[in-house]
């Protein structure tokens, strides 16, 4: 054995020893790190889960992720040969050859398009662009966007007046209805329309338009919720009535029967008045539809599409067949279309009194009286459309980039049209499917999306049923752009989203098997990388603050009060709410504890897009931003405000409403805009 060989062996041994020395403590360190991040001990040690799949920006993130179409709503051409598909994530209108299954055209429309309506002559479509606050008018023969019409904030559902002189546009974020004069090509009227509305439908005679809301009126915890359906007199374009749907919310869509005798509305009946431990009793969320009888003194009733031990969660679209015999409801969370026999429904309506039907609105077995079929679909069925002859039902399968085709006679799926999206399902995309699918909850009762519609929050207050029933009720928090805002939950007990959605989630909420590690990895990846804040077009479209917002910013950052006295550091807004997230992520007591709360401090919430998140404070007791201080500010516990005039408070609130995504904030900007006050 020569010297060099001995040296080689020695070097090898040293490397092995060093490797072992590094490997075991390193692995131990990695294990500890992963255990901390996931709050469990058995999660696989895969660095890529966090350090690759949770990258939201940059070239590597682009390689890891894919751009999908995510079809959301659709329309069918008058001859049935083409489909007009709103591809929400791509911001495109796709024109599909429905016979040869071929994408014929990609037409760029606005940001985050939502709904589509076709003119009677079949030559034009209107598409609402929810994140652009406008409507794209597309000339179909040429495939050109010929006009862009301004709307209110967050346009979603749209429909035409019977004479097609007016376009009615539901503004979800603005909670109102825009009336566009199509001759003048401009908005002529904006009417209040409930709270977070999306659905709209015009009666067959053209005299009435319904707009359905998703959020309920803000009420103190313990009171039943009511959600609005606005009724418009389309002959005058004035509101004629507002109907309250008791104990229901998330009324995504609405549809009339062809004869006009019934209006049907998809809805969810949340059981937020009882602790969430009731979930295994089928008692957290029920899913169904509302019926508004159109006769004089017509009733408003609710019926379930759920059945014992099986739920059809997150009902989205509802549409009635051309012959008026069947209604179809897409349940996005269970990949199913439920079919309602309308004649059977009419029989139920005839046989039972309002009081009896009110009772059956909670009866899971009652749906057997009118549900005649469950049709499977691809992932996350959303918008529905019928062919002109009524023989085909088309389904926008949002998370499969496909359009399902169902034979309305046999009620069987017969084809799936491929929109040509990426074939690879990324981790984040898989996470979105998990997020939107109810298989992770007891008997498919609900999804993450149910309480976080549009990945945001549902505005309700829940008792999460910790160790003390009826205590520590909390308002749902938004999931938009929460990456970087740890810790999570109002009490900040969850250091990561992994912990939030892992074992505790199944113990406390879903009451079934915890998510598998791959599903949990995917879910966290989606939540941390795939959920964006919509642009703040209502209060801060350009980044240039109004005079009032600028004054509010100075108040937000002030160090001295109106009398020239120095404000203690912990009394300044900016101390606890610094940019870019407007939170220091520390725990504070701002005097907001209720009698039913344990004595704790709360995690300082981030304030980006805060104007969309009413009600406020941990238990939703403040209906508006103003009430945080006018009713619950106490003795300057939540910032030093008692020296302020009403005008000062308005300026401060106006500034808070101007806050946008953290990506617009930078340290440099913060320094440049720092107040001298």
């Amino acid at each position, binding site marked *: 054995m020569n010297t060099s060989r001995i040296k080689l062996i020695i070097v090898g041994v040293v490397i092995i020893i060093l490797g072992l020395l590094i490997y075991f403590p390193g692995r131990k360190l990695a294990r500890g790190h992963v255990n901390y991040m996931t709050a469990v001990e058995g999660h696989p040690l895969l660095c890529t889960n966090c350090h690759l799949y949770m990258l939201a920006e940059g070239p590597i993130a682009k390689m890891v992720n894919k751009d999908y179409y995510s079809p959301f709503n659709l329309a069918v051409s008058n001859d049935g040969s083409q489909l007009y598909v709103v591809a929400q994530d791509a911001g495109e209108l796709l024109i599909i050859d429905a016979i040869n299954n071929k994408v014929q055209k990609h037409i760029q429309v606005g940001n985050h398009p939502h709904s589509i309506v076709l003119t009677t002559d079949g030559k034009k479509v209107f598409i609402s662009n929810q994140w652009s606050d406008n409507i794209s008018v597309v000339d179909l023969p040429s495939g050109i966007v010929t006009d862009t019409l301004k709307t209110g904030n967050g346009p979603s559902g749209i429909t035409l007046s019977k004479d097609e002189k007016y376009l009615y546009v539901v503004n979800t974020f603005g909670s109102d209805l825009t009336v566009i004069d199509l001759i003048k090509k401009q908005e002529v009227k904006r009417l209040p329309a409930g709270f977070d509305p999306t659905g709209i439908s015009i009666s067959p005679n053209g005299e009435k338009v319904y707009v359905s809301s998703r959020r309920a009126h803000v009420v103190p915890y313990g009171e039943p919720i009511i959600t609005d359906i*606005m009724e418009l007199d389309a002959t005058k374009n004035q509101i004629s009535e507002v109907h309250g749907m008791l104990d229901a919310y998330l009324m995504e869509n609405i549809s009339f029967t062809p004869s006009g005798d019934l209006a049907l509305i998809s809805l969810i009946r949340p059981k937020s008045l009882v602790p969430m431990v009731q979930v295994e009793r089928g008692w957290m969320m029920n899913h169904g539809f509302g019926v508004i009888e159109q006769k004089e003194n017509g009733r408003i009733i609710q019926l379930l599409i759920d059945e014992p031990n099986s739920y059809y969660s997150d009902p989205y679209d509802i549409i009635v067949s051309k012959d008026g015999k069947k209604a179809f409801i897409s349940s996005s969370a269970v990949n199913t279309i439920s079919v309602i026999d309308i004649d059977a429904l009419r029989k139920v309506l005839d046989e039972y009194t309002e009081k009896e039907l009110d009772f059956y609105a909670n009866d899971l077995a009652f749906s057997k009286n009118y549900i005649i079929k469950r049709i499977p679909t691809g992932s996350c069925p959303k918008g529905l459309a019928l062919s002109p002859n009524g023989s085909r039902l088309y389904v926008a399968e949002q998370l499969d980039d496909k359009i399902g085709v169902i034979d309305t006679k046999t009620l069987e799926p017969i084809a799936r049209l491929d929109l040509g999206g990426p074939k690879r399902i990324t981790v984040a995309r898989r996470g979105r499917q998990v997020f939107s699918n109810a298989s992770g909850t007891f008997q498919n009762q609900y999804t993450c999306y149910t309480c976080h519609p549009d990945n945001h929050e549902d505005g309700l207050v829940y008792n999460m049923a910790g160790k003390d029933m009826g205590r520590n009720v909390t308002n749902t928090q938004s999931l938009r752009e929460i990456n970087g805002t740890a810790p999570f939950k109002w009490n900040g007990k969850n250091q990561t989203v992994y912990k939030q959605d892992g074992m505790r989630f199944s113990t406390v909420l879903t009451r079934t098997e915890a998510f598998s590690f791959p599903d949990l990895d995917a879910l966290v990846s989606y939540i941390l990388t795939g959920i964006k804040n919509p642009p703040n077009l209502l209060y801060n479209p350009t980044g240039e603050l109004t005079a009032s917002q600028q004054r509010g910013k100075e108040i937000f950052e002030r160090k001295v009060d109106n009398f020239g006295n120095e404000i203690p550091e912990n009394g300044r807004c900016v101390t606890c709410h610094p940019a870019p997230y407007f939170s220091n992520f520390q725990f504070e007591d701002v005097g907001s504890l209720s009698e039913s709360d344990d004595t704790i401090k709360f995690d300082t919430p981030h304030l980006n897009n805060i104007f969309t998140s009413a009600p406020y404070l941990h238990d939703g007791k403040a209906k508006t931003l103003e009430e945080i201080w006018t009713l619950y500010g106490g003795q300057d516990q939540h910032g030093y405000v008692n020296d302020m005039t009403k005008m000062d408070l*308005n300026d401060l609130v106006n500034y808070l409403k101007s806050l946008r995504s953290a990506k617009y904030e930078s340290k440099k900007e913060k320094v440049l805009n720092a107040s001298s006050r």
Partner: protein
Amino acid sequence: MKTNLILTIFIITVFLITGTSSFGFTKSGNQTNAKGEGNIPKYGNWKNFTVADGLPGNKAYAVRVDGDRVLVGTHEGLAVYEDDKWTTYTTEDGIAHNGIIAIDVSELTGDVWLGTMGGLTRWSGGVFESFTQLNSGMPNNLIYSVVCDGKDVWIATGGGAGKYDTYSKEWDIFTEQNAPMHEPWTYSVCAGDNKVWIAAWGGGVIEYNNKTKHFRDYVDPDGNMEIDLFPDDGVVHDITTAVSWSNGILWVATYFGLSRYDGVHWKGYFDHDSGLASNFINFVRAVGDYAYLCTDQGLSVTDGESWVTYVRNENNHDGKVIITTGEQKSEKKLSPSISHNFVIGVDVKDDVIWVATSYGLSRGERIN
């Protein structure tokens, strides 16, 4: 039977002699009006409403005609008269406060806006939604006046004027800090010609230009003097109680007389030199070329030259109508008369006038 016939003949004879009917003025009575009063509307056939007739309270602050119905703001809630029936809405229905001082109806949306002693309420599609100084950016809960101007709703409050943009849902507050007011107390607001006028207590009239977003003020050149030292030199007093604009004319009510402004010239009117019922004017509403003035001593109607004033007797339900043109003055008996002389609100639609008083509501019909 014979007795009844004699009685009937007697009543008809009395009617023909007096030229008035026991039910009010008639068109034949109009023929005897003083010369020069022109087409100024005159009302008769008065009918009065009180709690006994279905009003929730006798103190009526405001009245507004809305299509086929009449909205009345009382101290006990909102009374709605439709199809000869009264319906009452109160705080239990969602109104901010039962004391409803001001009412306006949006021409754009058809929504009804109620200014109350405890906040602003929108009545839309049968649902009441209330704004207060605590839950919104509204300046103050005590609302004296409300007017809809396109998509904006303006209010005059005890803590400044407020403008609510129904599109953006934002409030602007105007007080002495950012507008040429003497103090934040404002009493009335009206809109027209792309401008908004605010009656500001002690500050005369504040004009807001919707195009320029700028204010200017009109104050009494005589300062705080309670007499109008130099006639027609400006608004008659800085303590203004109401403003109303119509057909290019701004009418300004004060507790010390009335002013009329045509955009160039001011003219003042007082009870001693015109047919104005009293210098103490609670409210003015301009409709067409006429101003309807609610005073503590009756209701006056004027076109700026001629006057018709309705006054109730102290001891019975009858009263008189006084017609004044220049130096000429004539009086006629009125039976019944308006409900009370302390008049607080008025509205006119077509040939019907509704008058809100401190004791009941009156309805009159045009008789000329």
